[in-house]
């Protein structure tokens, strides 16, 4: 199954593949800037959590612990790093991180990273829709010395 079958809104024009496939880490880890583990609630997660809590509130709380706060939209704002949390009514499904040019980077499960020009390019699929944006100041990630 190729990417356009998995993600109906993905076209040759709105994305590019930017890494080989890897089972080492997943989208949540990649959005947090980590590549040494797959992040799963109750298994490897930045806050205490049960393994059964897969609602959208859990990754919101997890990223809040990393300095993010809930935000209204995903427009590019200088000095801010934003993430988009996708989900369905039951589950969070995916997290994408905005790059400094306004595009988004996503690790697609066990598949590749892609850069997609619109946050919705991977919505409307098994990922559902963007449920929540969050932002933090870039200094939070790269503190000035």
């Amino acid at each position: 199954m190729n990417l356009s079958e998995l993600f109906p809104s993905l076209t040759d024009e709105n994305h590019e593949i930017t890494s080989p496939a890897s089972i080492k880490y997943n989208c949540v880890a990649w959005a947090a800037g980590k590549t040494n583990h797959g992040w799963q609630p109750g298994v490897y997660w930045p806050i205490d959590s049960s393994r059964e809590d897969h609602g959208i509130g859990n990754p919101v709380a997890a990223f809040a612990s990393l300095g993010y706060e809930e935000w209204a939209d995903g427009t590019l704002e200088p000095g801010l790093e934003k993430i988009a949390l996708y989900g369905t009514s039951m589950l969070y499904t995916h997290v994408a991180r905005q790059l400094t040019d306004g595009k988004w980077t996503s690790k697609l499960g066990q598949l590749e990273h892609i850069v997609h020009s619109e946050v919705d390019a991977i919505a409307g699929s098994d990922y559902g829709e963007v449920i929540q944006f969050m932002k933090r100041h870039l200094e939070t990630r790269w503190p000035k010395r």
Partner: protein
Amino acid sequence: MVTMESAKPLVERFQFLKDDWKRNTRHLSNVAQISLVFSYQNIIGMGPAVVPLILKELEKEPDHWFWALEAITGENPVGENEAGDLEAPARAWVQWGKQKGILAR
């Protein structure tokens, strides 16, 4: 003639369900979403007889089989330091299978 999927021999049925599960979940990250897929639930429903097939699969290719193995066997040999990975838990489960005599040493 109507044939029921569940009437297929165990190995053939497992292969069919495993291929369907992998095809439909490679792009997913949330283990709950990965495990809720119908074919994965079907594999869990096959019970202890499918454990050797899952372990052999894990030997070949690490994947999110841990939920199914724990649900079927009631055990979890994965250490705290091995969690959050696919390769280390896969090794732990394969080792468990060898210790239990399910897989050849």
